């Protein structure tokens, strides 16, 4: 039932009958296909995903999916029949093994090949490997995929001592979920504070205190030197300070590496991800990259950045779909992010960079506050802890480009929400 490609077999992007291939079946990959169809694209769309399951929602994997009460299966991104109904050829359990840019085909692990007029790389990222002795013992886990989460979900009820390596978002979300299984939880962080690259010192200090108060032993300035085990299974770790930690379940959460090998082997530029321009296009005008794997110029960061978030995946996916359909706009969506950690909800609007100044709204001692991050005297990001009103207001104000100075923020009567309400019209 698919319309045929144009007679020369090479419809240009911008043509609604162009053949689009998407490599990667995560949030970004599925959203590209969805937006193309929603905006009237009639050409063939193929999604190639290497996991052997229907594309699924990733955020819950490190959160409620791991808590004792949660029995629900992980939620798919779309129902199975959605793909057929929208004439999206979803190929799961298949890896894209090579990209032939001259011939405009993607070679697949099942021996097949798919031709494209526009190719979107939405390959995502993989958990960074931890190269210390013993990291291959059973009981040492990563957390990125549904298979990872299911393995942890099966292991948690029988665990006694959980050791988390790395106090990033994954490590801290996992620590909070693991605590609900009544196990002892220790988190080691090599840096001097948790989330050092991601949040302000004020927010980091609050999160660290909250995790400690909830019973997690959080030790900064230390990581694992080696894991120890017997019969192939971990039973502890030796820290870099010489301390010993018993552990029958370990989560390594030391960040991710973008999956850029396919692009690199095809001669595309790769530097902390697949390098794209402001329209999310690589050096090859038929090849795009979006989501966790895309190193892109971002006006909110004041330079190139690679972002790992649902917002970025979905936002860039929608944008690239419009570019494929002929739009020539730069991607400029405001980044936002959230993390649930036990009783804490952290929400971030905008992008904070190391060195940005902070102005705190509210009293952190109450457990509800926001940190306004300023760069050169202008508000660029707001981190909110259990203050959802500030977060939503900040999203609207920052997206609207409203300029706010430290003086504005320090006014005792200042309210992000009141200011956002004064924006007309509301988005």
């Amino acid at each position, binding site marked *: 039932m698919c319309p045929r490609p144009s007679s020369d077999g090479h419809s240009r992007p911008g043509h609604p009958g162009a053949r689009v291939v998407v490599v990667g079946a995560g949030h970004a990959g599925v959203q590209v296909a969805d937006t193309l169809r929603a905006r009237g694209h009639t050409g063939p769309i193929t999604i190639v995903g290497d996991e052997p399951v229907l594309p699924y929602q990733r955020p819950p994997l490190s959160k409620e999916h791991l808590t004792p009460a949660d029995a629900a299966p992980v939620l798919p991104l779309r129902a199975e029949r959605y793909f057929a109904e929208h004439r999206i050829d979803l190929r799961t359990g298949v890896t894209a093994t090579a990209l032939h840019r001259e011939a405009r085909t993607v070679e697949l692990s099942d021996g097949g090949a798919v031709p494209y007029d526009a190719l979107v790389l939405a390959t995502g990222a993989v958990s960074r490997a931890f190269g210390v002795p013993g990291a291959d013992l059973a009981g040492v886990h990563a957390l990125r995929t549904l298979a990872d989460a299911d393995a942890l979900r099966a292991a948690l009820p029988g665990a006694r001592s959980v050791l988390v390596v790395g106090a990033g978002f994954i490590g801290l979300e996992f620590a909070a979920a693991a605590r609900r299984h009544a196990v002892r939880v220790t988190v080691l962080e090599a840096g001097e504070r948790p989330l050092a690259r991601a949040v302000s010192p004020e927010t980091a200090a609050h999160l660290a205190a909250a995790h400690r108060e909830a019973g997690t032993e959080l030790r900064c300035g230390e990581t694992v030197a080696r894991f120890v085990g017997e019969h192939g299974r971990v039973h502890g770790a030796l820290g870099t300070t010489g301390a010993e930690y018993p552990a029958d379940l370990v989560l390594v959460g030391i960040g991710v590496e973008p999956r850029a090998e396919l692009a690199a082997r095809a001669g595309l530029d790769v530097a902390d991800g697949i390098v794209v321009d402001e329209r999310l296009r690589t050096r090859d005008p038929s090849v795009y990259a979006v989501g966790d794997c895309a190193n892109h110029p971002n006006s909110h960061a004041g330079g190139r950045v690679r972002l790992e978030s649902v917002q970025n995946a979905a936002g860039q996916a929608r944008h690239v779909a419009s570019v494929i359909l002929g739009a020539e706009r730069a991607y400029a969506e405001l980044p936002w992010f959230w993390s649930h950690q036990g009783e804490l909800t952290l929400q971030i609007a905008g992008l904070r960079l190391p060195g940005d100044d902070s102005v705190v709204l509210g009293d952190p001692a109450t457990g509800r506050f926001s940190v306004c991050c300023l760069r050169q005297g202008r508000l660029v990001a707001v981190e909110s802890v259990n203050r959802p009103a500030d977060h939503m207001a900040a*999203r609207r104000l920052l997206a609207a480009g409203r300029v706010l100075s430290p003086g504005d923020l320090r006014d005792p009567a200042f309210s992000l929400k009141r200011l956002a309400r004064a924006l007309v019209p509301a988005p």
Partner: protein
Amino acid sequence: MPKVVFHHSGDAGTVVDADPGSNVMRAAVQNGVAGIVGECGGQAMCATCHVYVREPYLGALPPVSEDEEEMLDCTAAPRDDRRSRLGCQLTLGGDLEEVEVDVPEAQL
């Protein structure tokens, strides 16, 4: 088994069966109901599962949390002060064995 009826543009409705403990957003996504996105996976963070609950069911709904309250201020389709809810916050079963909702024209 809990039941959700989704109406689009005032049509006769699509009936979907759901597991107890599931919610209106999950029921929609799992069954491919158009117009409900659920981009954040049901965490009350994205407002893309906005629905208008029909009058007879308003009394059986769980209270609106602070997170949901703020998200409802930022929905793509206009908020209805009485009927607007996030589908991911409407847990099915118990008092809410059955519910009928109207799906808004836009979620983004």
